[in-house]
């Protein structure tokens, strides 16, 4: 059975597909290169976006006016510690606050001379159900001029832009893969027209449409895979050249990162090459069958 399959894989009839097949191989390589870059970009962007969302959801800061008494500050701290979903509460001491503001104020300024608010750093369970609106209402009664910054509102525009970029990358990847199908279909149709006599001979000898289509499909699978591998390798080289090896092998997800290379990157590159072969094969099969049905 395996011997028969290998025999079938050995191309005996090119029907003129050899020459155009060589050209299509490079077209496929170029399109896989584009699709692979788009796919890798999509994976990276998606991953970064998730990490970004996770980071913003896990942190918040509370600014309490400088003139609030220590007793009231203690009440605020107690309220924060009792709030469900808040994992840790840390009141920055004057030295920490100074270090934080040093890039803006410089080392010479002492904070005692300025009405700098007290800063409280909050760590929040991103998957928990912290009711920020309720917390704001409670804080308004304890420390009326305090300000809770949960980091979620200001980056919404950037978040939407990142999502749009994700859609564009997905669409360009899909378009590149579709172009493979179109290129292969166009090529095999042209070949069938040019080698009409050979196709007709095969028909007269008893070959069905499926038999002739299979000749093209097997060749197209090989051409597609070869072009796909070339394109994927070129994509690896381009990614390494553009971003450095570090960005390729290290996605910013400390909790999920394993090994020297993230498997998703290689899955995209390998998947693009395999998809090119399968798309080329399916496209050739369908194009030949349609053409043969019209020829006789």
């Amino acid at each position, binding site marked *: 059975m395996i011997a028969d399959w290998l025999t079938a894989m050995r191309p005996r009839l090119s029907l003129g597909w050899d020459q155009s097949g060589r050209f299509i191989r490079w077209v496929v390589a170029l399109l896989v290169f584009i699709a692979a870059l788009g796919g890798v970009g999509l994976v990276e962007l998606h991953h970064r976006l998730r990490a970004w969302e996770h980071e913003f959801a896990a942190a918040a800061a509370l600014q309490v006016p400088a003139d609030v008494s220590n007793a009231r500050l203690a009440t605020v701290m107690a309220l924060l510690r009792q709030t469900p979903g808040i994992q840790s509460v840390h009141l920055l001491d004057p030295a920490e606050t100074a270090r934080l503001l040093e890039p803006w104020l410089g080392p010479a300024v002492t904070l005692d001379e300025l009405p700098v608010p007290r800063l409280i750093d909050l760590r929040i369970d991103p998957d928990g159900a912290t009711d920020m609106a309720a917390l704001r209402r409670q804080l308004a009664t304890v420390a009326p001029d305090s300000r809770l910054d949960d980091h979620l509102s200001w980056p919404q525009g950037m978040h939407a832009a990142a999502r749009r970029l994700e859609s564009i990358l997905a669409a360009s990847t899909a378009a590149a893969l579709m172009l493979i199908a179109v290129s292969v279909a166009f090529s095999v149709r042209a070949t069938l027209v040019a080698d009409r*006599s050979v196709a007709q001979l095969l*028909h007269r*000898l008893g070959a069905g449409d499926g038999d002739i289509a299979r000749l093209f499909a097997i060749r197209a699978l090989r051409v597609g895979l070869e072009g796909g591998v070339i394109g994927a390798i070129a994509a690896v080289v381009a990614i390494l050249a553009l971003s450095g090896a570090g960005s390729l092998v290290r996605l910013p997800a400390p909790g999920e990162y394993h090994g020297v290379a993230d498997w998703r990157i290689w899955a995209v590159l390998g998947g693009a090459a395999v998809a090119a072969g399968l798309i080329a094969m399916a496209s050739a099969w369908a194009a030949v069958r349609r053409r043969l049905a019209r020829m006789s």
Partner: protein
Amino acid sequence: MAAVELDHVGKREGIGAPILSDVSLRLEEGAFYFLTGASGAGKTTLLRLITLAERASHGTLKVFGADAAALDRDAQAALRRRIGIVFQGPWLIDELSVHDNVALPLRIAGAAEREIRDNVDELLAWVGMAGRAAARTATLSGGERQRIAIARAIVHRPALLIADDPAGSGGDEIAVLLVRIFERINRLGTTVLIATDDVRFARRFEHQRFHLDHGMLSNAGAALAQ
């Protein structure tokens, strides 16, 4: 049992005169026939109908008992695999070797490589081309190409062998040799139909003959003794 049956079959292309008119004939299994007629009489069209390369404009054509008009494309292909054809020209694929040209019907039928090799080697020896298996057909002479075409037509042991003017311009000696080869195949049970425009040549053999004249069949079904 008839290998082929035509009942009032006609063929017309466009608005011109019909190529075939009301042709009825019956080819019995295992029999040997000549189809004679001048060039343009409609012989090739009739053979194309029988080999399912074209559809009749009207009438009923049955091949191995199956109504050709009712067959889908896959069923037509399956029936064609039971027919061997020697075309008017050799019609070989020059990018393939002699061996691979002869092997085509077996490959199309899905035969195993060992079976293909054994059968092709045997046939090539039979037609005197044993040493040329690896040669490209483009390098062969006209006579050699025709022998390859005959080997290809019979390599899969067809139930029906159709030959359209197989000798071509090869001369009387070649033509007689080909008929002797076809007679040997016929003795194995294959129905044979040879088309030729040389009526006198066909009369030299004691086989049934049909004659086409301007698309009309004369002496249909009759065995002509003369």
